[in-house]
């Protein structure tokens, strides 16, 4: 949706952490992106390359760990897989679903030197 803003957010964390963790180069970044986070992975890759140009993360490898969407169904009481927010429970077709996973946008770890 706004992958450029998100990548700027990632870049901000990389810069802040450089002082704290004492590194001057970022070689690789692992992001955890939930299926329901509304993030276009391909667009994220494109934007990441753009925002890292001329920074300590230039040419850094972007690894994306995709996390499947998950919800708890209030009707049948089961934890089910959810591809999209408007999907029904695959078990009982109810829409009374509480999203329990797959919404995150996290920076997991970095390879630095």
């Amino acid at each position, binding site marked *: 949706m706004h992958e*450029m803003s998100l990548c700027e*957010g990632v870049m901000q964390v990389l810069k802040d952490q450089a002082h704290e963790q004492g*590194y001057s180069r970022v070689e690789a970044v692992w992001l955890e992106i939930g299926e329901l986070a509304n993030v276009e992975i391909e667009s994220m890759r494109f*934007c990441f390359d753009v925002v890292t140009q001329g*920074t300590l993360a230039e040419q850094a490898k972007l690894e994306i760990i995709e996390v499947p969407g998950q919800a708890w169904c209030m009707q049948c009481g089961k934890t089910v897989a959810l591809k999209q927010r408007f999907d029904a429970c695959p078990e009982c077709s109810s829409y009374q679903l509480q999203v329990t996973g797959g919404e995150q946008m*996290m920076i997991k*770890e*970095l390879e630095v030197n």
Partner: protein
Amino acid sequence: MCTVCGCSEGETRIDEQEHTHGHHHDHVHPHDHAHTHDQLHDYGQGPAHAHAPGMSQSRMVQIEQDILSKNNGYAASNRHWFAEHGILALNLVSSPGSGKTTLLGRTIDDLKAEMRLSVIEGDQQTAHDAERIRATGVSALQINTGKGCHLDAHMIGHALDSLQPEQNSVLFIENVGNLVCPAAFDLGEAHKVAILSVTEGEDKPLKYPDMFHAADLMLLNKIDLLPHLQFDVDQCIDYARRVNPRIKVLQVSATSGEGMTNWYQWLKTTQQLLLIGD
């Protein structure tokens, strides 16, 4: 700068209400580009002093940080400020043309005698909306996001410094007309209120599920036009509940006034719950 949706911090303008001569105060948020490009990649000077040129001494760093942590940090401080001052902040989100500003104008006219109100207006350009709100007699401040597609918590923090909403008041933040990006950017508000008009499609909650998922209340606006349209109200509410089983829905018309008392009741009740420390 965003080449995809145009998000840009550098073009944000906050119109300060005391500047009646129409001067725009430029809030250029400096991006720190002081990157030092140390061309000397000497792999032999690391902590281990292993003199093995060309061998990488890279290490792994666990971060576990939310990508939106910077915005969320500003949002948390806004939320703290609202709590300290007993202010109910509402983030009004919708597509362009849903009637947000008209709804807000009517709400202010009807409630300004009994409640303390103020408004932050977010638009890409122009101060038209803030001027419309000021005409009702309450204080309003315009944020122009420039190329940006949403308000963020940092802009709201600056706006609060200028606007200085009163103790125990209600602050309406009218977000940029956009059903996509504002869903992800917490401003520190108590609730997101989504406004959908019946002149739009009833399947908007399915087309833009993240926004309706993030909202606590949906105002279905322009219901005075229903006789002239083929809009299935029940279907629309059903779609909204599919993406958000907890969403409350109120049917209103800011023009005819129909249903507006329910919305006012919701505002008063929500404010009271906040003041008793819910």
